[in-house]
């Protein structure tokens, strides 16, 4: 499940030049994070990879049969559906899931993300963190080959954010999808990824790719000196990125 981005550029109609020619190879099962200053085109890159918008030049190659899922910044839930019905949504849109299968899988994935007991609640009754859990559950229930995450934790508080990072890591480790995360939070990038891609301000181009060598990702890692050193290094690159 290699995704390759080759020579991708993007000019918007209004004349905004969002991305310079950009090449990137994402390997199967890899967790890669794109960081960059606001407005550098990182979300645009993610949407181009998703196939939601077309690049002006260049192309994105991924296997035809691959299934992708997108996790949006604001959770993007359907407010008129309860938690369980939200978890079933993508299985309704994609063919090949029977009604019974949808229910079983939805209940299973809700349990997995800790939303058991909230099946009949409505999104407005959930906290920000729970909404994001539901959004992740909705995507993961499809067993996607790749998951695209667009600043999924930017709207939750610091404590919830760390807990959710750990949960995303666990989900990734056990369900083995390829993940591409966009964030402006360097700590989050270092904690979750195998590689961190640093983009320059608009028009975004890759200035650095940093390998993250950690084997174990637990709470202790966050307070270790080598973790702090990498975070500092990438923050520095982000600041001098042009």
């Amino acid at each position, binding site marked *: 499940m290699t995704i390759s981005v080759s020579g991708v550029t993007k000019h918007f109609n209004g004349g905004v030049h969002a991305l310079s020619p950009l090449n990137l190879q994402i390997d199967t099962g890899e967790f890669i994070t794109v960081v960059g200053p606001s407005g550098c085109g990182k979300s645009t890159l993610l949407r181009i990879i998703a196939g939601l918008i077309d690049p002006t030049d260049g192309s994105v190659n991924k296997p035809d049969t691959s299934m992708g899922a997108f996790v949006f910044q604001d959770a*993007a839930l359907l407010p008129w559906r*309860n938690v369980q019905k939200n978890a079933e949504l993508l299985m309704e849109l994609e063919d090949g899931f029977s009604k019974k299968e949808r229910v079983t899988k939805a209940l299973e994935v809700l349990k997995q993300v800790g939303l058991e007991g909230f099946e009949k609640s409505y999104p407005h009754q959930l906290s920000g963190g729970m909404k994001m859990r539901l959004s992740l559950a909705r995507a993961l229930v499809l067993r996607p080959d790749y998951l695209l995450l667009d600043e999924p934790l930017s709207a939750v508080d610091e404590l919830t954010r760390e807990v959710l990072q750990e949960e995303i890591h666990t989900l990734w480790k056990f369900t083995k999808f390829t993940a591409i995360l966009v964030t402006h939070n360097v700590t989050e990038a270092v904690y979750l990824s195998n590689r961190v891609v640093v983009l320059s301000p608009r028009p975004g181009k890759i200035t650095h790719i940093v390998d993250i060598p950690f084997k174990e990702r637990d709470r202790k890692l966050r307070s270790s000196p080598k973790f702090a050193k990498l975070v500092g290094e990438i923050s520095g690159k982000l600041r001098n990125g042009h």
Partner: protein
Amino acid sequence: MDIKRKLYFTLPPILVLIIFLLVWSGFSNFIYADMAFLLPSPLIVVQSFISNFGDIFDAAMMTLSEALSGFLLAISIGITSAAIMSQSKLLERSFYPYAILLQTVPVVAVAPLIVLWFGFDERSVIIISLIISLFPIINNTLLGLKSTSINLVELFQMHNSSRFVNFFKLRLPAATPHIIAGMRISAGLSVIGAIVGEFIIGSGNSNGGLGVQVIYAQGRLETALLFALILTATLVGFLFFITVSTLGHQLLRHWHESEIA
């Protein structure tokens, strides 16, 4: 404590009503005592209501059924045409200006034409009621269908949903609050439309709806009956509005900000 709170909310408007009725009685009994046909006292209005209850009730039922037909037609035609316009910018640009004309055309002036075309009967009344209540439904539905959150649209796009699925699973449910807002405006308008329609066909029949009875009562200077009819017409409109509001509340109470306590 609870009863106290309830009184706190219900007592002031009731007091206002009582004072209003007292002032009204005072005017009609003392100041206009020799011109009772201009301003009959509330008591006489109630008496007239009771003694004419059978006729008023029949007339109200007739107006109600005409308004309901006009309203239901407006809902189905309004939602359908908004749905069609929401499917393409070209369709919207082609037809929306004419939808606005529905709103700006003086219904009272068009009504005689409608009656010429469709006859001096219920059909014309229903069509006039339809014309007056159609625009708020088209306008609000269209706005609702176009205001779907961009992230949700992208989510559906990501999973290759068809236009059909997109409409029924996303755009239409997302537009319900707007549609209901439109329906609430149209509910009252449809009753007004029916009464305007009845005015126009009125002279011909003596046993028509409330509008017909109003013309009839005015012609015979039965002011008390006139008051009773006006009151009834207002109540019918109010009943319509409350029904639509309750229905809307049932539909939205789980999820829309406007209905979540």
